[in-house]
């Protein structure tokens, strides 16, 4: 099954989802599309009108463009996902209007889709890491049953 991970570029979540037999949906796959199928290799000129139109589905014209651009990349992945794992309070998941509002929008879209989801707290010690891994394992093994 396809499992969306949040943060979308997390090494730990990507590895754990794959280790327990599912396909992680991550930012890296979406960015590789841009790199391998490039028409114009000159950022930001490689952001085409198609991306803007795709982003409009998730965020209106009054929303800052950073959010729309990010949702153009992540929105289709959420639509494709069968489940999601979200890591709460990760210290590297912070930001200003663009990043933070995009992160909140991601969580809202996942909730709106109604797919099975698991919220895990960012682990800061061994005990919390054990809780994190074991609960992720139980969630992933329970998918599709």
């Amino acid at each position: 099954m396809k499992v969306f991970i949040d943060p979308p570029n997390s090494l730990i979540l990507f590895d754990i989802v794959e280790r327990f037999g599912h396909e992680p949906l991550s930012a890296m796959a979406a960015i590789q599309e841009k790199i391998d199928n490039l028409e114009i290799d000159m950022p930001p000129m490689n952001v085409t009108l198609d991306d803007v139109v795709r982003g409009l589905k998730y965020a209106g014209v009054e929303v800052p463009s950073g959010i729309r651009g990010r949702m153009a990349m992540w929105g289709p992945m959420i639509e494709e996902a069968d489940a999601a794992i979200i890591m709460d309070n990760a210290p590297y998941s912070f930001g200003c209007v663009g990043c933070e509002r995009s992160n909140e929008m991601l969580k809202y879209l996942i909730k709106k889709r109604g797919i099975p989801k698991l919220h895990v707290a960012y682990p800061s010690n061994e005990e919390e890491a054990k809780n994190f891994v074991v609960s992720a394992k139980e969630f992933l093994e329970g998918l599709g049953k």
Partner: protein
Amino acid sequence: MSDERETRLLMISPSSMLTPDQLVRSVHAMNKDVKVKETCYGCLVEGRREVVKEVLDQIRGKYRNEVFSKRRAYPAGDPRRCRAQHGTRPGYSQLEAEWALLSNVQHGLECADRGEKVEPVPEKGLLPVREFKKICEE
């Protein structure tokens, strides 16, 4: 999605005795048609998707909870990201933060392999007004 190329980042846990050199030699010894680039945290493996998957499965079999991997969008040595060619490295801070966490995750995976269970954390409900008043008065 590109089916031809897959680049994988293999990162070694800080509590492992494995070195990037040993990891690269293990990958080379598999004699698969992949490019390997040694890095400070492990290595990058690049090749056709199915071949890289075979390499990853063998690495996971050999170093089960010591090596973590994720997909990398940019090819190995891409000038837009390669440090030697003065590329920008926007994802490096996050990689560094996640690397610091890998020892704990390794411990978690070992506990999961042993079949240990955890107590589910009770969900925090809304605080009743009476409780809130009591806290304010104390």
